[in-house]
């Protein structure tokens, strides 16, 4: 699936929830389903420390695509991390750079991504984009593949 298709399918999944609590219950489910990141990756260089919750993020590159793993100590944040991974992981650097992740707005969870909501999510998205920029550069220079 392309990023846009993945976003569409998420929007569709969320569209059945009319009640906020159901929406969040689903996020919690997503959070619970996302495997915990390996403890050896829970190191400070992978940590994005918000005032409210912590997020861990790792990135790997092969076959022209970036594969992210992520985690959080707050389960709702972890659910949102799961959505981000689902949308962005396994795509090319350029695709990741180009997307604006507007689906978060459409499913009504934009607040969590605001720069002032210090849960680490916004910083995680920034970090994902930075990884993409870095890998694109390395790939262009032929230093990775």
């Amino acid at each position, binding site marked *: 699936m392309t990023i846009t298709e993945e976003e569409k399918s998420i929007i569709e999944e969320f569209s059945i929830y009319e009640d906020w*609590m159901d929406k969040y219950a689903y996020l919690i489910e997503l959070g619970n389903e996302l495997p915990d990141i390996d403890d050896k990756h829970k190191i400070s260089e992978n940590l994005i420390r918000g*005032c409210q*919750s912590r997020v861990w993020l790792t990135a790997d590159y092969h076959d022209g695509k970036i594969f992210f793993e992520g985690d959080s100590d*707050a389960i709702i944040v972890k659910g949102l991390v799961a959505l981000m991974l689902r949308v962005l992981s396994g795509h090319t650097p350029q695709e990741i750079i180009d997307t604006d992740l507007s689906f978060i707005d459409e499913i009504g969870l934009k607040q969590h991504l605001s720069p002032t909501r210090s849960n680490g999510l916004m910083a995680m998205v920034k970090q994902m984009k930075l990884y993409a920029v870095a890998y694109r550069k390395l790939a262009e220079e032929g230093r990775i593949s």
Partner: protein
Amino acid sequence: MFNIEAIRKDFPVLDLQVYGKPLVYLDNAATTQRPNQVSALIADLYQSGSGNIHRGAHFLADRCTMLFEQTRDTVKEFINAESREEIIFTKGTTESINLVAFSFGERFINPGDEIILSEMEHHSNIVPWQLMCNRKGAVLKKLPFDENGVLEIDLLESLITEKTKIISVAHVSNVLGTVNPVKEIIRIAHRHQVKVLVDGAQAIQHLPVDVQDLDCDFYAFSGHKIYGPTGVGVLYGKKILLDEIPPYQGGGEMIDSVSFNGTTFNVLPYKFEAGTPNIIGVIGLGEAIRYVSSLGLENIGEHEHQLLGYLTQELKKFGGIKIYGEAPNKASVVAFRHEKVHPYDMGMLLDKLGVAVRTGRHCTDPLHERFGIDGTVRASLAVYNNIEDIDLFIKAMNRVVSMF
């Protein structure tokens, strides 16, 4: 005598529905809502016109000057200061503390001098001192607290050396709720010629404050936490000290005469009020104080204590909850964690059920460090909360926890 229903009517926001649920506002330690009396006065001043104060010489300016300076008297009486010159209007507690850290520091702090803070201080009562210490080569020392959130006051005497110049301590902790024995701290400090600033941001709205009885050297609080407007605060300082320390900010109002060769400063309190103040904010604060005074802080405290007792009891019954801060003398703030639910998740879900609490570290990193935790949920009460609020809160907690 204390008609909670009548009081609630003064706060129209309590009828708000959020996400289709009635609002239960338990984030009062962050900011309180305003009674109609305050909003109406502010609205009226903005609508009916205002002038700049002090130097103006026309009707609108005179009216605002009068109301502004009357508020100084209102504050003076509210905290029982000795004179109106001891009341400085600032933009909030944070600025009040910065003012003292700077001006007291400029005058009295030399390399190697020591400042004592408690370990439960809000960042606003830590960072200004750190910035000053970095400039002056002075040192911060910390007064610890015990498991229950009670300051280890026995250690104070041993922390004080002849290098100690000032102690800065919260009257009430914004997380633990502890009412610190500031009067005793001040007594000990003064025995050693050490000055004391009391951060009253979380006290002024809950208990009667008498700066002469406390004998504190400085006292700071914010308008927005005592049912008043944003952008206004107070610094009380003993006249003799305010006279001795240099001005903080420079500008209009705070001068007597200015030339490129030198400037002479205005008398107190104007010496510390540079620039056009938050005129309408100050006047609004006066109305908020009148509101609180009309209810009586003893009555408010009693009402909040009953609620606090009930809230604490219900949380303990709830199970899986650890409360941080169980001092015998406590104001109406409860910080806690649930064994299964991360504070952020708790806050998010409570919000969607209409309950406003605060989560995270509440600008008290060292306090959270002390407990080895990275956040808590904080429910904080105000005069307009009632038993039903707490019942709704507990019901919402049940719903949230059932999701995990």
